[in-house]
């Protein structure tokens, strides 16, 4: 038996919306939430809302949120019982998980051994084979040479996909459609993987045409129970990065859901996995599914699963980490309704999706029925340039997919983020696209949409109303003695202050 031990103080080793997400779960369970922050994040919302906050170091992640030793020192000073890593940063770092255990602090996630087995894509493919899971044809080990790549590709047939074993985010990935392209693709995939992950190990698999990316959420306690919580459809991607996620998937019926769920649970049990995790699959046009990889942590897109199952995954993560058994069985898990999530980023879709850090001068947030926002910003916050561009996750829940889309459109229309550019308008476009609305999506869907011509710009009537509005701003504000807009870009001013060694907030 596993001993249970109550967790009273959790250090949250993350920032942004996920740090707030975990912080809220702590409050709800009467656990003291402890924040850590870099110099860029002193005024960040997760610091504002925490009970205690510890400085880690300068802005770059390598000097702050990736410094496991500094984080453990903060945990010691804060007398934290446990560390929640969120996603990204140290969340899939087996060495850090081990260091936590050595320091007597519970790491809220799977054991380091399970993380190692499933964290490498080639080792995970081997584990999938042992668990009798379908996977794409191809190698289950790193390719030693171009010759080996040639022979594997020839045996499974083109097109094939080269992938980095340590990969993520589409880095070190190349689609190869014929043998003559293999050599250069092999070299570039290897060097990109080497640069991005410190390991040039690549493997090769059959390319599934127009696949859907569908993943299964699992939860495993430390008593050998593991259950699956339905699927998430994550096919709407840009450059292999998820943009919109939903649950359930339009192509997954009860039978397929059961089979994918059972396969995921089998793999997790075989790997000695505990806590929350996600098994990702590709699903082809004939609804065959193929194992893709495992994410050994909470996912960005976990809210859609929470909305359709009615459960709270972070609560359950914490209870599992305390050694408690899962409080329900597989048969208790029922999906109801439909949930869709948008990842709201500080990026400019009209300018090649360039990052758009800077001060949020104005923020109007959506609300009302069926809207959940997991937000990491506030009006006045200067979004730092040092971390990923995620601002917020906007999620809609409704009885049906059509109504969830309608609700999300409504919420997006209420939402205004001023001062920086965001991808809100891009979501409005996707959510009005006939293919998306009919769930005719696969992992190439969004790139195809982006090649289409943009919808026409503003109408003449809008332009006239805008002219009147601009005139009113000018008239009221010149009367008040201040110019219509801030005299200098808030961002520029902030950047200058930072460049001169001062912090963005006086």
């Amino acid at each position, binding site marked *: 038996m596993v001993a249970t031990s109550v967790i009273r103080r959790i250090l949250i080793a993350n920032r942004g919306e996920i740090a707030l997400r975990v912080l809220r779960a702590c409050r709800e369970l009467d656990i003291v939430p402890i924040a850590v922050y870099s110099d860029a994040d002193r005024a960040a919302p997760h610091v504002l809302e925490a009970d205690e906050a510890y400085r880690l170091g300068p802005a770059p992640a390598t000097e702050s949120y990736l410094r496991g030793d500094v984080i453990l020192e903060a945990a010691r000073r804060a007398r934290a019982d446990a560390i929640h890593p969120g996603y990204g940063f140290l969340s899939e770092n087996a060495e850090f998980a081990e260091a936590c255990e050595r320091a007597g602090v519970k790491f809220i996630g799977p054991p380091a051994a399970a993380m190692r087995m499933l964290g490498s894509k080639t080792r995970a493919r081997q584990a999938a084979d042992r668990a009798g899971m379908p996977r794409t044809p191809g190698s289950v080990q790193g390719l030693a040479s171009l010759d080996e790549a040639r022979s594997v590709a020839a045996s499974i047939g083109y097109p094939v996909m080269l992938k980095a074993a340590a990969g993520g985010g589409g880095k070190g990935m190349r689609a190869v459609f014929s043998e003559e392209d293999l050599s250069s693709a092999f070299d570039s995939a290897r060097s990109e993987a080497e640069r991005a992950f410190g390991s040039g190990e690549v493997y090769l698999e059959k390319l599934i045409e127009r696949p859907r990316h569908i993943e299964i959420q699992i939860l495993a306690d430390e008593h050998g129970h593991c259950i699956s919580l339905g699927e998430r459809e994550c096919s709407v991607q840009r450059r292999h990065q998820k943009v919109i996620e939903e649950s359930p998937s339009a192509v997954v019926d009860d039978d397929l859901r059961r089979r994918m769920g059972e396969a995921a649970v089998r793999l997790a049990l075989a790997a000695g996995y505990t806590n929350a995790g996600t098994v990702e699959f590709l699903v082809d046009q004939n609804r065959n599914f193929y194992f893709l990889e495992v994410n050994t942590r909470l996912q960005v897109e976990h809210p859609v699963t929470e909305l359709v199952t009615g459960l709270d995954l972070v609560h359950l993560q914490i209870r599992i980490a305390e050694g408690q058994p899962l409080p329900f069985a597989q048969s208790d898990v029922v999906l109801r309704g439909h949930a869709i999530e948008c990842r709201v980023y500080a990026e400019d879709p009209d300018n090649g999706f360039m*990052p758009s850090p800077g001060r949020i001068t104005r923020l109007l947030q959506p609300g009302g029925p069926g809207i959940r926002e997991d937000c990491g910003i506030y009006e006045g916050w200067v979004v730092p340039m040092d971390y990923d561009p995620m601002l917020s996750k906007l999620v809609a829940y409704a009885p049906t997919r059509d109504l969830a889309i309608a609700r999300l459109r409504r919420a997006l229309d209420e939402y205004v983020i001023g001062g920086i550019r965001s991808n809100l308008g891009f979501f409005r476009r996707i959510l009005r696209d006939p293919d998306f609305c009919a769930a005719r999506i696969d992992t190439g869907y969004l790139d195809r949409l982006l090649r289409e011509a943009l919808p026409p710009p*503003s109408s003449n009537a809008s332009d006239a109303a*805008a002219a*009147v509005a*601009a*005139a*009113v701003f000018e008239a009221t504000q010149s009367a008040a003695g201040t110019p*219509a807009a801030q005299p200098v*870009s808030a961002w520029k001013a902030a950047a200058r202050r930072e460049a001169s060694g001062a912090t963005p907030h006086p």
Partner: protein
Amino acid sequence: MKLQIEISGRSRQVQIDPGEIPGVWNVRVDGEPVEADARLLRPGVLSLLIDRRSHRVVLDGDSSDPALYLGRERIAYRMEDPRSLRSRRRPTGAEGPAVLKASMPGRVVRVLVEKGQQVAAHQGIVVIEAMKMQNELKSPREGRVADVRAVPGATVASGEILATIE
């Protein structure tokens, strides 16, 4: 007051004066009267009723690049000073020195050229990084590097001049 406002490439003349009821304005757009009832809810946020159609307007951008959200739609505009219309500066053409500007706010990661160096068109000049994305800025044309203002590690604003090629 009389304003000249450029929106979607078209210049409009707006005559605006306070009406008798506070918040109700006497407005003419290109000479046509418009019934406009506008209330400032807080700085930069306006409730605008035009002929009973309701618009939520939020000011965005800054004075060098003003824009507003009309409902969900972002509309850029330019307030033209009628007296200075003729003196408007033209964008730098191909004839003069070409300037390389930051395409996004970020941090300078690498500077790939030196002052005085000869460069080809599309040759990489500076790499900037923001939010985990690196962006290599390339020379707009063949020429000589007249000036490099970018310094590795420094923070740059979007549109800031990083180098000049002549």
